[in-house]
């Protein structure tokens, strides 16, 4: 029940009990966001730095709101308007910010392992908000939290993750968390974006979306990263759409009560049709709402209480 981590760097370091603690805490925080006064004094006097070396709207604003609703002060750092453009290294940037005595650093970086590297030399709590194509732990926590609010149990739940698995840190974190929670995960995508190596993660790999959707409880669509399209991972957008776009007809193949998820941002008409994204079974906006509660839970569990003995 006690959360003994100093940092949140990846899902792999969390035990099923840790995950349950995050969920139970987030349950309580959901209520605060529905109040007229959406603020509690718990982290008053704590300073949190949003250190984003990559663009983001959802994750950054979600962390910012989470911190503000707990009364912490938050400093937003973005690469474009910083000395990084003058050539300052990650280490120097962090050391300079640390000299101002923050309590936590929330880091997004294009290089896998950047938050782990920072956690190795800094005093503050480090939270990974997405590192390269490695992990995006808070996204996986909020995804699983959203699934938990719709489905009774993770046991025997069939979760289908579709799209650019190769480049997706969201997919990796979700693979890890779903395995820890006991769900069955099926990955779907074109072979160029879904190498056979993924079967090492104890998941099923399928290249036929229609086949994979049978009996699915949860369908998680990933964004096709259009900015990577010049590397030709698939012949054309039209072909991708024909094979992997979640349409009204296709979702009919899944279970009647299947929910549709997407971590955003959505390319409407590419990986998912507008009709499906806006349908009653879509929980995409609920994911965003739950994201704030889950991030409040993480901040509370890491920063709350006295400096405790931690396992990492």
């Amino acid at each position, binding site marked *: 029940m006690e959360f003994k981590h100093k940092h949140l760097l990846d899902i792999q370091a969390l035990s099923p009990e840790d995950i349950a603690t995050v969920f139970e*805490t987030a349950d*309580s925080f959901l209520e605060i966001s529905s*109040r007229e006064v959406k*603020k509690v004094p*718990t982290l008053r*006097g704590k300073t949190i730095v949003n250190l984003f070396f990559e663009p983001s709207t959802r994750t950054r604003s979600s962390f910012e709101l989470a911190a503000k609703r707990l009364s912490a002060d938050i400093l937003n750092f973005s690469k474009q308007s910083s000395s990084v453009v003058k050539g300052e290294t990650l280490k120097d940037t962090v050391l300079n910010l640390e000299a101002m005595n923050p309590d936590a650093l929330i880091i997004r970086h294009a290089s896998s392992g950047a938050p782990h590297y920072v956690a190795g030399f800094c005093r503050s709590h480090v939270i990974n908000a997405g590192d390269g194509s490695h992990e995006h732990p808070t996204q996986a926590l909020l995804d699983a939290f959203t699934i938990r609010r719709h489905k009774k149990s993770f046991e025997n739940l069939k979760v289908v993750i579709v799209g650019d698995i190769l480049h997706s840190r969201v997919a990796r974190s979700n693979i890890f968390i779903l395995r820890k929670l006991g769900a069955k995960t099926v990955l779907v995508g074109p072979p160029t974006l879904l190498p056979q190596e993924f079967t090492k993660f104890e998941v099923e790999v399928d290249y036929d979306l229609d086949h994979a959707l049978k009996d699915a409880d949860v369908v998680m669509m990933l964004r096709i990263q259009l900015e990577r399209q010049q590397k030709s991972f698939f012949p054309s957008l039209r072909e991708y759409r024909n094979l992997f776009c979640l349409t009204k007809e296709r979702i009919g193949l899944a279970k009647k009560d299947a929910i549709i998820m997407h971590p955003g941002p959505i390319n409407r008409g590419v990986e998912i049709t507008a009709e499906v994204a806006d349908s009653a079974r879509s929980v995409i906006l609920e994911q965003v709402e739950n994201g704030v509660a889950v991030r409040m839970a993480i901040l509370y569990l890491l920063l*709350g*209480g*006295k400096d*405790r003995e931690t396992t990492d």
Partner: protein
Amino acid sequence: MDEKIKARVMDASKIRRSLLRMTTEIIERNRNLNNLIIVGIRTRGIYIGKRISQLIKEIENVEIPVGVLDITLYRDDFAELETQHMVQKTEIDFPISKKDVLLIDDVLFTGRTIRAAMDSLFDIGRPQTIQLLVLIDRGHRELPIRADYVGKSLPTSRREIVQVQLKEIDDTDEVLILEPTALK
């Protein structure tokens, strides 16, 4: 367990009679019972609140809603806690603005819990009045807070522990004074 029972200060019938007496005091003081709502502080305040609500219903046939308040996020010693407290839900599903709130806890000690509870209430709405009911007032206040309804005033020393047990979660109705056997 490194504490022993020093005294058993209330049993089931004493608790029942004292809740009944406080209920009549509440009815006497709140002429408009329809404006009254009960908010119990986790954990045992909830059950005392539900019992008071039931008693008011039996006597006056008025249904008083009972809400639940978790004060973990409002504690003033948050940064000093050795172990992390699990945050639990606050469940107040009715508006509290302009209402007469009867705040209920099992034991009144330093007054810090009540301070936190009042801060929390004001973040939820703006009550007309707040009254405080406790089963046990054990003294040693550190803040200018007093209870409007007291089941029993109990002079204690600071190192003693007052333990309220209620059937709903402890299988028995009684109030004990415990004393630590070894100084830590």
